[in-house]
C-alpha cells in the first residue's frame, strides 16, 4: 500500500513538473551575431485566411527575385495561443527567422528569454522603423530604448453598432448618442429596456490577461488622450481618468447592460448585443450577416471629437528571432514585407491598417474605393499599445483581476481595486 501511495504522489508531482518542463528540452540554432549573413530563411504568419493570402503573395514576390535567399513560409503552429507556441519554440531553438504575428505585450518576455534580435543593431534598423511608423514607434521600444519588434499593423478598436437594433430601440441610427459616458449609458439602457437586444454591449467578461484590451484600455486611451496603462515603469491608471473609466464600466455591469457571463458565439452577430468593440476586420466579418451597421469612436467622460479620440491599437508586430542564421536576409525581407507596396497589399487583402504615418494619403485610392474603412484608417493615427515590459503579461493580469472583481462582479470599491492593481504593477515593473 505504501508503494501505491508513493506512486500516486510521484505521478502527481511528475504531472505538475512535466507541464513546466515540456518546453525546456531540445537544442537548435544558437543566438549569434549573424546580422550580415545571407541565405534562405523561414517565416511564420498568422493562420487567418486573409493573412495567409497576403503572406503567400509576399513570399512569391520575394522568391521570384531572390533565388539564393528563398523564404520558406508556414502558418504559425497550432497551440493554445501564438505566444505560448513562440515561447516554447524560443526555448527549443526552433523559432523561424521572422514571425508576422507578435503580440507586443509578449515581446518583453521574448526579449528576456534571449529569443529576439535587437533590430536597432542593424545600421538602418531604428531609422527605418521610425520613418515608417513615426512617433507611434516609441510605444514599441523596449525598456532599454531599442526595438526588438517592428510595429507592423493595427486594428484600432471602435464601437460597431447595429443600426436596425438602434432603430428598434427608438434611437437615431444615423447620429447615435454615444459620445459621453452619460449618453452611452442612457442609450444602452434604452436598448435593453426596449427589448431590442438582451445587452447593449457585450465584451468578454472572462479573466484572461488580454481582455482589458477590449474594454478598459480603449476607453482609458481615449479618456487620457493617448496614455498607455504603464509608462516609465509606473502604472498610470490610478487617477481620475482611470477611476472614471472604471466607474463607467461598473455602471454598465451593475445595470445589466452587458453580460457577466461568457457568451458562446458572437453576441453581436446573433443580435444579442447592439454594440461591439472591434477593429476593422469586423467589416468583412460582420458585413456578411449585419448589413446595416455604423461605427463611432469609444466614449469619453465628457465627449471627445472623433478626430481627437484615441483607442487601443490591437496591433501585431514582426519579430526577428535569435535562432535565425541569415539575419541579413531576414532584415531585408522585413523591409520588403513592410514596404509601401506590400503594406498596400496588406490593406487590400486583409483590411488591416499598416502602422505607417501617412496611411490615408499613401493609400487614398483604397480609402476612396472602400469608404467603410476610412474611419478606421483615420483612427489608426491615434492608437495606444499595451506595455512592452518583460512583466507586461503579469501587469495586464493584475489589472484584469481587479477589473473582474470590482467592476464586473461589483465586489468592493473601484478606486481601491485600481489603486491596488497599480501598486502591484509598480512592483512588477521594479522586477522587470
Amino acid at each position, binding site marked *: 500500500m505504501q508503494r501505491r501511495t508513493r506512486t500516486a504522489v510521484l505521478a502527481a508531482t511528475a*504531472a505538475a513538473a512535466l507541464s513546466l518542463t515540456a518546453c525546456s528540452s531540445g537544442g537548435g540554432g544558437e543566438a549569434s551575431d549573424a546580422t550580415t549573413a545571407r541565405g534562405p530563411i523561414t517565416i511564420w504568419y498568422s493562420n487567418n485566411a486573409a493573412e495567409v493570402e497576403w503572406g503567400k503573395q509576399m513570399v512569391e514576390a520575394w522568391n521570384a527575385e531572390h533565388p539564393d535567399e528563398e523564404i520558406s513560409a508556414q502558418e504559425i503552429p497550432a497551440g493554445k495561443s501564438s505566444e505560448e507556441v513562440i515561447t516554447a519554440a524560443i526555448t527549443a531553438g526552433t523559432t523561424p527567422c521572422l514571425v508576422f504575428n507578435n503580440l507586443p505585450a509578449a515581446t518583453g518576455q521574448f526579449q528576456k528569454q534571449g529569443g529576439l534580435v535587437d533590430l536597432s543593431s542593424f545600421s538602418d534598423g531604428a531609422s527605418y522603423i521610425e520613418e515608417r511608423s513615426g512617433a507611434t514607434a516609441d510605444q514599441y521600444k523596449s525598456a532599454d530604448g531599442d526595438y526588438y519588434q517592428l510595429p507592423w499593423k493595427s486594428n484600432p478598436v471602435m464601437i460597431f453598432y447595429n443600426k436596425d437594433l438602434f432603430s428598434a430601440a427608438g434611437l437615431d441610427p444615423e447620429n447615435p448618442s454615444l459620445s459621453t459616458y452619460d449618453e452611452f449609458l442612457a442609450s444602452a439602457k434604452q436598448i435593453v429596456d426596449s427589448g431590442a437586444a438582451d445587452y447593449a454591449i457585450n465584451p468578454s467578461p472572462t479573466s484572461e490577461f488580454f481582455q482589458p484590451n477590449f474594454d478598459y484600455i480603449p476607453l482609458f486611451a481615449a479618456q487620457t488622450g493617448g496614455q498607455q496603462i504603464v509608462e516609465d515603469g509606473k502604472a498610470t491608471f490610478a487617477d481620475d481618468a482611470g477611476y472614471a473609466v472604471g466607474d463607467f464600466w461598473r455602471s454598465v455591469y451593475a445595470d445589466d447592460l452587458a453580460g457577466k457571463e461568457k457568451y458562446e458565439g458572437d453576441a453581436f452577430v446573433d443580435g444579442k448585443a447592439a454594440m461591439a468593440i472591434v477593429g476593422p476586420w469586423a467589416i468583412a466579418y460582420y458585413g456578411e450577416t449585419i448589413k446595416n451597421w455604423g461605427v463611432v469612436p469609444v466614449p469619453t467622460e465628457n465627449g471627445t471629437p472623433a478626430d481627437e479620440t484615441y483607442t487601443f491599437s490591437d496591433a501585431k508586430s514582426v519579430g526577428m528571432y535569435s535562432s535565425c542564421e541569415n539575419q541579413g536576409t531576414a532584415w531585408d525581407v522585413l523591409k520588403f514585407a513592410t514596404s509601401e507596396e506590400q503594406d498596400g497589399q496588406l490593406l487590400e487583402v486583409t483590411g488591416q491598417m499598416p502602422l505607417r504615418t501617412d496611411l490615408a494619403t499613401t493609400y487614398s485610392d483604397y480609402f476612396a474605393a472602400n469608404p467603410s474603412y476610412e474611419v478606421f484608417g483615420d483612427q489608426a493615427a491615434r492608437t495606444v499599445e499595451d506595455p512592452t515590459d518583460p512583466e507586461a503579461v503579469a501587469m495586464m493580469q493584475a489589472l484584469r483581476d481587479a477589473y*473582474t472583481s470590482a467592476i464586473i462582479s461589483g465586489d468592493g470599491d473601484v478606486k481601491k481595486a485600481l489603486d491596488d492593481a497599480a501598486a502591484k504593477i509598480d512592483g512588477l515593473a521594479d522586477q522587470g
Partner: protein
Amino acid sequence: MKRLLGAQPIGWLFGAPYLVFAAVVFAYPLGFAVYMSFFDYFFTAPGVDVEKPFVGFDNYVAVLTDPAVLQSFGNVLVFLVINVPLTVVLSIVLATALNRVVHLRTFLRVSYYVPYVTASVALVGVWLFLFGGDGLVNNILGPLAPDPSWLVNPTLAMPTIALFVTWKQLGFYILLYLAALQNVPRELYESASTDGAGAVRSFFSVTVPGVRQATVLVLMLSTVIGANLFTEPYLLTGGGGPNGASASPVLIMYQRGIQQGHPGFAAALGIVLTIAVLIVALLQRRFAGGRDE
C-alpha cells in the same frame, strides 16, 4: 556481480525500458521541478547566458503568501469536499446496479462511460447549454434560478464545476467498481440472503466491504485528479472567474509559469500542491482502511 544483479540478471534487461521511462518521465521532471523552485528561473533560448540566481525559499514564501494561491487552495478544497464523496457514493451504487441489470447492460455501461472518453471541450459545451445564464436548468427553475447564475456566482461556480467533473469521470470509476465486484464471492450474497438480509443490508454488509480496496483506489485517484484540476475552470468559467472563485492551483501554475514567465514560482506551487495531496492521500489511507490484506 551476481549479488548486485540478482539470480536472474536478464530480468534487468526486460525491466530496463520501464526504468528508463520512469527516469525520463517521472524522476527527471520531478528533480528539475524541485531545482527550479529554488531559483529565479525562466526558460531561455539555447546558448543564451542569463543569470538565474538561487533564491532559497523565496518562491515558497511567495506561493504561501499569495492571496490568489491561497484562494485557489480553498477553491480546490471545496471541489474535493463535493467531488470525492459524490464520486465514491455514485460510482459504487451505480456499479452495483449495473452489475445486476440484465437488459440493456452494454448500452447503460457505455452511456456512463462516454463522457469520460469525450473531450472536455465538447462536454463543456453541453454543460454551458445546461448551466449557462439562459441554460436549460435556469429555464426550468424560472424565478428560483440563482442570481448571478451558476458559473458566474462566486459561491456556486466551484460546486458547479465539481458536479461537472463528477459526471464526466463517473464512467471510469464505475468501471473500477464493476471489476472489483467480480471478485466478491457470490456465496457471501447467498449466505446473507439465507440469514435474511435484504438488498440494502447485503449492499452494506457484503458489497461495501468486498470492494474496499477499490474504494481506496477511487478515493486516491479522484483526489489526485481533483487536485490537478485545470481544464474545467479554464473553459467553463473563462480563466478562473468570477473574481478568482474557480481558480485552481494548477490554473495559477499555468498563468505564472507559462503565460507570465515565472516557472520558479510555478514549480514551488507544484511542490506545495504535491505535498498537500500526499498529506490528504495519507489521511485517506489511514481512515479509509486501505491496508493490504
